[in-house]
């Protein structure tokens, strides 16, 4: 069993903050795949390691302190190792421990050994242990545990080849059992359980019996039978677990007393000093805000260059194709539907990559836990906790990675509330909308440090934050029956973040975004292109032919003619029909049917508003040129009254609408995926849209 063939699967385990991800990245490089475990939101991260004996699959299990399955992370580890996860057949377990702090890791190691898989232990951070003067007798530890022990300093790449070699040669062993379940539990009971759920050994059977109610994978009839056994044998789960925990602690203490020599001196001096600064009641918050400001700046300013480059490149690509392809429906689909659609996905990559680079640095340095620590108390009145800070801040770039980042929140209620309110944070997709609309309000841009435009932007961001916090507090009241969360958060030692880990995170998160959200965005862009390009029968051509062909063939006259034709065509298209159909609903907000078209189209993604109004107000191909767009919009008049369409009241109403409304198919898709159902995304979309409608209504009626 230990020496398995080509189809072997190695499960990587360990307590949090021991460098497990670093080792995983070193072993697999970029050959990683992120999937999902059925029924839970935990990422299933697998990678392939190339070896002389072929490819070995490596499964990076979430970091857990033990195998008692309480949180979703722990449940996944428990399931995989107990054989409840179909298609995952673990051939061996590689567990990582922090050599400079072995007390913390060994509890899990003893549980892993008792689960009965062939196991090997990596003592990581050997350099740190040496620096602190800690001596661990590796040979003795190996003998006491009965499994191979490898030392490594993964940050520096030391020991990686030894780990690879161990995996290649399959040097894993089943180890010396630590706890005999028969000591505190009737053996015949465990045999019966094994018979029912097909467990390999008594300890696995005991685990299953203890956590049968949490384990939905056990068929109901078997669960009922297990329940009867619990009654029959008067099985006291809590008591058994206390006994087991005590035995393990005694065992770990015994092992360490034999093979560990700790220095007399107190350790971790630098971390303590840094904590006195970073967790200072006053400076701590100041530093936290400064870091936030830096991240914020980066997402907006640093990403601008690459985003402009992507924008221009795709515009160039579309132009190039339209020149070289014979004109026709297919060419139009490619140059007006598909290429801009892909461009609309790729344009977010710089922001997502930058955000996750920062998050990875903050996580890798150990600062993230400190940020949670100092903000936890402040977030609690809103039904959030310190861990909500990261998703909410990420929401300023894009709600999607923010909602994905909410996975670190173990409490269900806190996590749902965080997911629910994150889309209120003013994401980068709102920015183009804000820029165009605020530009209409204040056309003369003053170059002073403090100007009207800047204040308007600030106000809109504040509005989003306010909506998020108030909604969170409201949800907390509604969901007060749910179990409230615990914090229990480790503050790891400060470390220098690993460039390799940062780069891998940037790459993996961008890839996930392009393939997960990108599919939906592309599909919707193509659908919307069809809606705007086609109408029932020959209605569009007939509408276009009503425009008077100019007598004089001057350039200005021809341009005017073409603009009128485009406007007529879109009015007759399917999109135009829908826009007119919703006009009565949006009229009280100060919108006409053309804005209606833009609202509908931008339901795919907010920034589509800009390109849609550009099309509707027919400024031709150069749709991304904001200056021309602004001039066009301010000259636009209503069909019925002839008064300007974009009055300040209408513009403010639109701004408030976009600040609150969901208007993002990708967010809906990600919320559906994260909450495992349509219930939450639907409630969320309805709530946000109603709030947006009512607020816009109030704003328009007050200002007009």
């Amino acid at each position: 069993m230990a020496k398995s063939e080509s189809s072997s699967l190695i499960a990587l385990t360990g307590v949090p903050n021991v460098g497990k991800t670093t080792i995983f990245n070193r072993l697999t490089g970029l050959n990683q795949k992120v999937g999902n475990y059925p029924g839970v939101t935990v990422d299933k991260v697998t990678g392939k390691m190339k070896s002389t004996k072929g490819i070995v699959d490596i499964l990076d299990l979430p970091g857990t302190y033990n195998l008692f399955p309480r949180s979703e992370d722990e449940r996944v580890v428990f399931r995989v190792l107990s054989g409840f996860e179909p298609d995952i057949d673990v051939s061996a377990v590689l567990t990582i421990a922090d050599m400079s702090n072995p007390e913390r890791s060994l509890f899990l190691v003893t549980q892993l050994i008792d689960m009965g898989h062939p196991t090997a232990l990596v003592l990581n951070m050997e350099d740190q242990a040496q620096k602190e003067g800690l001596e661990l007798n590796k040979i003795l530890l190996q003998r006491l545990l009965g499994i191979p022990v490898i030392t490594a300093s993964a940050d520096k790449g030391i020991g990686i080849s030894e780990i690879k070699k161990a995996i290649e040669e399959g040097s894993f062993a089943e180890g010396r059992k630590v706890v005999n379940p028969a000591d505190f539990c009737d053996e015949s009971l465990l045999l019966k359980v094994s018979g029912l759920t097909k467990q390999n050994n008594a300890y696995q059977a005991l685990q299953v019996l203890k956590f049968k109610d949490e384990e939905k994978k056990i068929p109901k009839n078997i669960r009922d039978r297990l329940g009867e056994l619990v009654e029959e044998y008067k099985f006291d789960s809590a008591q058994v677990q206390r006994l087991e925990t005590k035995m393990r602690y005694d065992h770990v203490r015994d092992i360490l007393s034999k093979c560990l020599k700790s220095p007399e001196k107190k350790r971790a001096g630098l971390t303590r000093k840094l904590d006195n600064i970073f967790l200072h009641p006053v400076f701590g918050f100041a530093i936290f805000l400064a870091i936030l400001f830096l991240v914020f700046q980066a997402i907006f300013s640093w990403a601008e260059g690459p985003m402009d480059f992507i924008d221009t490149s795709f515009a160039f690509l579309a132009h190039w194709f339209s020149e070289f392809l014979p004109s026709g429906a297919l060419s139009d689909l490619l140059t007006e539907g598909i290429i801009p659609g892909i461009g609309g996905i790729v344009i977010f990559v710089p922001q997502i990559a930058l955000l996750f680079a920062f998050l990875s640095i903050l996580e890798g340095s150990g600062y993230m836990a400190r940020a949670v620590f100092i903000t936890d108390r402040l977030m609690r009145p809103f039904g959030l906790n310190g861990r909500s800070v990261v998703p909410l801040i990420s929401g300023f770039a894009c709600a999607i990675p923010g909602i994905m980042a909410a996975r670190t929140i173990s409490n269900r209620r806190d996590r749902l509330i965080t997911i629910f309110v994150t889309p209120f944070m003013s994401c980068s997709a709102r920015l183009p909308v804000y820029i165009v609309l605020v530009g209409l309000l204040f056309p003369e841009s003053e170059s002073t440090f403090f100007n009207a435009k800047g204040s308007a932007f600030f106000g809109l961001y504040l509005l989003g934050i306010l909506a998020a916090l108030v909604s969170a507090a409201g949800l907390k009241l509604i969901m007060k029956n749910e179990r409230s969360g615990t914090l229990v958060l480790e503050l790891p030692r400060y470390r220098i973040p690993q460039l390799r880990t940062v780069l891998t995170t940037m790459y993996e998160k961008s890839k996930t975004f392009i393939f997960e959200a990108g599919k939906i965005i592309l599909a919707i862009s193509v659908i919307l292109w069809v809606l705007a390009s086609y109408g029932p029968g020959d209605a569009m051509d007939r509408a276009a032919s009503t425009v008077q062909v100019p007598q004089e063939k001057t350039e200005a006259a021809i341009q005017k003619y073409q603009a009128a034709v485009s406007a007529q065509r879109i009015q007759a298209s399917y999109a135009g029909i829908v826009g007119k159909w919703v006009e009565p609903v949006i009229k009280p907000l100060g919108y006409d049917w053309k804005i209606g078209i833009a609202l509908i189209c931008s339901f795919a993604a907010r920034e589509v508003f800009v390109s849609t109004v550009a099309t509707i107000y027919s400024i031709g191909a150069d749709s991304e040129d904001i200056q021309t767009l602004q001039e066009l919009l301010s000259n636009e008049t209503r069909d019925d009254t002839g008064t300007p369409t974009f009055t300040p009241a209408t513009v403010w109403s639109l701004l408030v609408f976009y600040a609150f409304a969901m208007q993002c198919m990708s967010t809906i898709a990600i919320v559906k995926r994260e909450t495992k159902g349509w219930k939450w995304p639907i409630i969320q979309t309805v709530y946000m849209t109603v709030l947006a409608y009512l607020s816009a209504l109030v704003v328009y009626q007050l200002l007009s």
Partner: protein
Amino acid sequence: MTSVTADTISTNQTVEIVDLDGNETGQRLGEMGFWPGKNITLVLSAPFGDPMAFEVDNTVIALRKNEAKLIKVKTTAA
């Protein structure tokens, strides 16, 4: 020698854990290292005194005040 809960000790004070609350959170703390017989030190508290960071087994773990309440400790009062 008096028995108090861990949320009442002062910064840099080291105490020994004597008992844990029997509820699920209490048990979880036990599995995280807060086990009777071990020494813990209050390293520092966040603004407003909540959460609190304790050192146990050379690891610093932050707990909310009402979680720290579940840990009974004995002080060797001077």
